């Protein structure tokens, strides 16, 4: 992500779009400057004096700095050396002449048991710009351009009041976005429409006033969204006290990096174990498409034929009841597997299609339930 100061946009009436970079040349230039600069400071100066579009170059430089491997500095040592120099300086009445300055460095070096040149070198390492660029980023100009364009879209959303998102109903994609949203403590409402899922993201306080409070969090969803390949983002963005519409999609935007969020990973070893066992006798679909139940997205763990299966680890009767109620509204056949040891309730409170397991679910526990749906 780049700071808002470097955001480049185009406005037409009440519609706003990122002003994407379409020519990789500036990206190439900034990469070259990083390669030919010894320190971060030199790099920054080189970018500044390169002329041209300052916002664009600063934005690119920001990303390049972040992707570069910069010399690590022993912060403790730097602080120790500098404090010693300052203390010595205070004792002799400050470096009011160049000669006094030299004397102070010598005296401090002696106390620190270090060489004078070494003390001076460490002294200046306090500033980021004196640090050496060990390894400039190993991306091509086109790749940098893609990262930059993604960062522009994110920066524009910093000022968003909400985000509406359309995605194809593919479990891995929807799951990673919804998970990210939950991780950032955002709220959402989902709806099946236009051959996919529309999800509206905002925060708890959004119903009282339009607030940019959640903008930074909303922006953090973007890489998950664009990784879907097929997507659409609609948002309202507040810039200089005016509201603008943003309407972007994979068709309108230039190519963006396809950072693939964790695909096909199991939530737990329990699930993995179950999958391994059942898949021997049945064809099991991992992470089937999402169900929308009362505007919440719900992704069961497995699907066998048309039977959805959910493995519940820790639970309370209340949690289970709510989950069951929710799922029964989806009107889909469903089987819930519950760990007996973690169960906090008696048998009587369980729903009809709940199966308890000990330790980990075994094929024998569930075979009679899944058999009718099973296809080899």
């Amino acid at each position, binding site marked *: 992500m780049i700071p808002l100061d470097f955001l480049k946009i185009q406005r037409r009436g009440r519609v706003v779009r990122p002003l994407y970079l379409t020519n990789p040349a500036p990206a190439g230039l900034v990469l070259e400057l990083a390669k030919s600069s010894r320190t971060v400071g030199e790099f920054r100066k080189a970018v500044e004096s390169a002329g041209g579009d300052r916002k664009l170059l600063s934005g690119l430089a920001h990303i390049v700095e972040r992707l570069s491997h910069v010399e690590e500095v022993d912060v*403790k040592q730097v602080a120790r050396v500098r404090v010693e120099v300052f203390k010595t300086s205070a004792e002799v*009445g*400050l*470096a009011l002449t160049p000669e006094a300055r030299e004397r102070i460095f010598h005296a401090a070096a002696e106390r620190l048991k270090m060489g004078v040149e070494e003390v001076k070198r460490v002294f200046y390492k306090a500033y980021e710009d004196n640090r050496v660029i060990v390894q400039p980023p190993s991306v091509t100009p086109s790749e940098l351009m893609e990262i930059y364009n993604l960062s522009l879209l994110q920066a524009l959303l910093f000022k968003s009041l909400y985000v509406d998102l359309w995605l194809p109903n593919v479990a891995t994609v929807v799951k990673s976005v919804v998970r990210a949203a939950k991780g950032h403590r955002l709220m959402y409402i989902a709806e099946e429409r236009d051959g996919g899922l529309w999800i509206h993201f905002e925060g708890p*306080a959004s*119903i009282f006033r339009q*607030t*940019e409070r959640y903008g930074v969090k909303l922006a953090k969803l973007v890489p998950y969204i664009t990784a879907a390949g097929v997507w659409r983002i609609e948002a309202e963005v507040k810039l200089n006290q005016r509201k603008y519409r943003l309407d972007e999609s994979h068709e309108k935007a230039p190519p963006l990096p396809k950072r693939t969020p964790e695909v096909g990973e199991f939530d737990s070893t329990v699930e993995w174990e179950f999958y391994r066992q059942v898949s021997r006798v049945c064809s099991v679909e991992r992470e089937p498409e999402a169900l929308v139940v009362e505007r919440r997205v719900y992704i069961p763990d497995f699907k066998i034929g048309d039977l959805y299966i959910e493995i519940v680890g820790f639970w309370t009767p209340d949690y289970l009841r709510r989950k069951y109620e929710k799922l029964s509204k989806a009107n889909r056949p469903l089987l819930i597997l519950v760990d007996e040891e973690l169960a906090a309730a008696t048998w009587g409170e369980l729903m009809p299609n709940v199966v308890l397991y000990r330790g980990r679910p075994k094929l024998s526990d569930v075979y009679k339930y899944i058999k009718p749906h099973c296809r080899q």
Partner: protein
Amino acid sequence: MGVAISWDRGTLLIEGDLPRELRRLSFVKFDERVGKFRTLAMYYPNLLAVARAAGLGVEDRVWALHCLEARPAVEVELRPYQRQALSSWARTKRGVVVMPTGAGKTHVAIGAISLLKTPTLVVVPTVELVQQWRARLVKHFPGRVGVWYGEEKRESCVTVSTYDSAYAAVENLGNRYKFLIFDEVHHLPSPAYRQIAELSPAPYRLGLTATLERADGLHVDVEWLVGPVVYKMTPQEARGVWTADYEIEVVKVSLTEGEREMYKKLEEKYLSLLRRRGLKFKSSTDFQKLVMMSGRDPQAREALEAWRGMRRLLFETEAKVEAVRQILERHRESRVLIFTEYTSLARKVSETFLIPLVTHDVNPREREQVMAMFKRGELRALVTGKVLDEGVDLPDVEVVVILGGTASVRQFVQRMGRALRLKPQKAKIYEVITAGTREVATSKRRRREVK
């Protein structure tokens, strides 16, 4: 009949059969996303009051308090006027105390925590102030003081945070503290920071400041975010009695020949671009317009660049470093604090005279050590950007050098205030400005209310 109120990320959810009295409150809304009624957390006391008046039972699930009781191990000793401020705040336990720098606002705050004995969140502008509040609070609440900011996040019964960190964390921390203290409360009404007050259910609130007024007029909002001004003491009332007397000396320096030429060039460019856009130089609203225009208009952008270049020249001229040398020579025995507008000049001063630097680009570890040493008297001088403008207590500073700043009266008063803790001798304030440039007028503007 009754309702249950619970905390949800800066808001409150109200469940149960809501009677008309609650439903029609302007600040309560039905949230279709969750099928429950919701309100901003700050309305917690109002909600309770209405429910009580309607004879409604309330199940209060709002709080996850950090501790049961914040009882002071050592009581704070208050001066008579501090005691007066505290007791007038204590009537409603909401409100703002206005007191000049050096008059001991922190004492009033510690008195208020001791009075309420409830978990408290103190919000301050800078990391330096976090450290300072922590050091003060620890004396009265040993082992029960936490901090919450960028580098360090450890909550305790009384926690000190920055406005930035509190803004980001209020959804998570809000229901842990029943008492909010805003140091330098004039920062609060900004569109972002005010959310700390809005998304917290804390019924008890105290604001502290030397000058409540804001140029944008938003200070009126402090009244409903925190409470009305309950006590006010002006610098004139405090001068010489509770804070040191002072003397201001303006030192004029000249740009070097090369700098002067550069300045002229930039100024011509700036003025001609301004004229072409029909804007006036002196008007601050016209300057705002220029900033707005610069988004689309390349010429406006160029003008703004020229203006920045001019400022930079004025604030960073070599002559200012030389002026600092003379001041340091003149005050060999005094403790000196130097303020600059740009970090680059602060760095130049630091590197030339080997004076420690307290700015954002210096590691917090070093900053913290340096501040502690300065307070102990092991260092003679400090140079800083804007970090130390406010509130940080530097007890024995006798000389303040201001090398550049805005026309803001507030900033000037605050910087001066660093030298105004009560002490026998007069404090000396130097303002180093560049002769024959617009910095002269800026300096006049910022001093207009001080003499």
